[in-house]
């Protein structure tokens, strides 16, 4: 598992050889090309398992997407949001995640796309939520406000990410940008890639990110009077609040004897399969 987080400056001088023995020349070339066009707009990047992540400054989001289109990324895959606020690390701990007190505040009226005043009410709940969950996730990094971030790095709770693809070269890139925690705003790219129109509407209603310049930032899935942003981590999933997930029983540890027996069965099946010539079963 490579966890190499290379800032661009480092990436150019020394690709970390210990974690990635062979340098992915295709992705490296993609990255060089992009950083050549964007300059210091690129604040983080990551190459792993034949894929490329590039994180850019929020102000340069639109310019980045335009540059990508210019570089031949003609196919728009998706655009969505990420909320890095720690949730319960696994479903077992779902009941320990405290959401009760701030749940009320969280369901403040959805802000109009044009105004950002309503946003601040939401984020009053954020520090409380972060503190409450901190002790349930002791393995968080500690820096960056107490939560982990993904590949390409990140300094804020909210990130927007999009995937573009070049059908001519057969390569793709995942773009990311950090958003302001209190007022997640970003330039719209609906006129660069027409497909982003609906994706931005979805991201707005699910995460509350405001896309400036989008002509009709209205609900697409949820009813018009829906309040709150469901995919934010502090939005409670009510069915889990009422009753913990019964399916958790499924992943209890086996008794050691049973575990060994099953392992032996798998080994035997593997051995048997190799001897048998191809057969329907």
């Amino acid at each position, binding site marked *: 598992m490579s966890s190499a987080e290379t800032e661009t400056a480092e990436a150019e001088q020394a690709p970390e050889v210990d974690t990635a023995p062979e340098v992915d020349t295709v992705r490296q070339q993609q990255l060089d090309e992009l950083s050549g066009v964007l300059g210091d707009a690129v604040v983080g990047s990551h190459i792993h398992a034949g894929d490329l992540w590039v994180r850019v400054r929020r102000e340069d989001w639109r310019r980045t997407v335009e540059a990508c289109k210019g570089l031949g990324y003609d196919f728009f895959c998706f655009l969505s949001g990420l909320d890095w606020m720690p949730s319960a690390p696994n479903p077992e701990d779902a009941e320990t995640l405290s959401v009760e007190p701030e749940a009320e505040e969280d369901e403040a009226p959805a802000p109009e796309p044009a105004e950002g005043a309503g946003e601040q009410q939401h984020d009053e709940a954020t520090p409380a939520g972060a503190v409450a969950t901190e002790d349930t996730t002791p393995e968080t990094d500690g820096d960056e406000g107490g939560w982990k971030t*993904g*590949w390409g790095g990140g300094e804020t709770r909210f990130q927007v990410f999009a995937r573009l693809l070049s059908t001519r070269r057969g390569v793709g890139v995942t773009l990311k940008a950090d958003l302001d925690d209190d007022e997640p705003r970003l330039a719209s790219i609906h006129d660069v890639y027409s497909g982003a129109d609906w994706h931005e509407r979805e991201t707005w209603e699910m995460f509350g990110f405001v896309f400036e310049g989008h002509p009709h930032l209205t609900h*697409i899935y949820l009813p018009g009077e829906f309040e709150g942003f*469901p995919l934010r981590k502090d939005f409670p999933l009510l069915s*889990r609040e009422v009753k913990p997930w019964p399916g958790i029983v499924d992943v209890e540890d086996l008794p050691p004897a049973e*575990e060994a027996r099953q392992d032996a069965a798998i080994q035997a099946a593997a051995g048997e399969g190799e001897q048998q010539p*191809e057969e*329907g079963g």
Partner: protein
Amino acid sequence: MAVTTDPQRLAYIATQSADARVNVELQTEEMTLNLGPQHPATHGTLRIVARLDGEQVVWADVVCGYMHRGYEKLTEVRTYPQITTLVNRIDWLSSFANEVPFILAAEKLMEIEAPPRAQYIRTILFEMARIANITLFIGTMGADLGAVTPVFYAFRDREHVLNQIEGVTGGRFHPNFDRIGGLKDDLPRGWIDETKAVMVRIREFCDELEELLMGNDIFQARTRGIGVIPAEVGLSYGLSGANIRGSGVDWDLRRDQDLPLAWKDLDWKVWTHPDGDSFSRFWVRLQETREATKMVDQMVDGLPAGPIQAKVPRIIKVPAGEAWVHTENPLGEMGYYVVSQGGLGPFRCKIRSASFNNISVLPWVLRGVYVPDIITILASLYFILGDIDR
């Protein structure tokens, strides 16, 4: 005032005034037509609001979300093996094909690969799901255009494919058969011969439908040149699958990326059509069904021996990281962006479903078309409601 008696001049004035009257008459009051949410052509609950000027659409908008089930939120409170049950219900006509990219994304994060036999069986079931799905499309496209017979043939022959899928997985619509590291079970005895017979039937079905529909003048007249989507527009909207190949883009994720599945070993062809209209989308899908039957034949012949399950821990914990895996599903590009923080379930799972993007082109493509063509275009873009609403 001089009165002209020149007959030529009189005729000219008469035509001019007739044109002017027609122009005035055409400027009718706009009306709004509400199509759906329960309309047979929407195959579920999709609503289209079209503003009409006479018979022509001047503006159209799509209202979706009647079936939104919030799968992206639900994935965050389930374990990896449990999520296949959810994703089965995204595109419910080819459920197995939904499971594969998700399992591949989890495997990519865990850095494991299914054994070759499992890869082959996965691809066989994937292609059979494609056949089951597109067979129905071929039938319903006819039904939407007023030809009733094809849909009966389609249901009749799809049944054989579903029986084969049920034979392996036990589920006709929701197999839930794919596992991290392999598959739940091997193929049952005698299945291969039955499958080969079914593939022959499906090829006959394709021939039959080709004669029934594509040779039909009405079908040609109602689909040729209707709903033309140029390649650049399609790419920009993120159209995928047969919709983009019907616009002449030679792009197929089965061929153009490296996945641990069997497509790379097979001899097959990606079909494209340069026209970009409703007919070409139909034509490409029909060819793809034929191609899929040939692929299944090749795969059952070359099925490698060996285990069907790699060694994985009983409690699956996926290491922290991010992975994006997309495959060429019957409806187009379907992908999962999985963010793991090392837990039993994903931290975030973005589901990219094909129909959502395929349908987002509707406001663009419906502008200026006539009312009956709305139905043709909807049918030819081919969407599944669960795949739009997730």
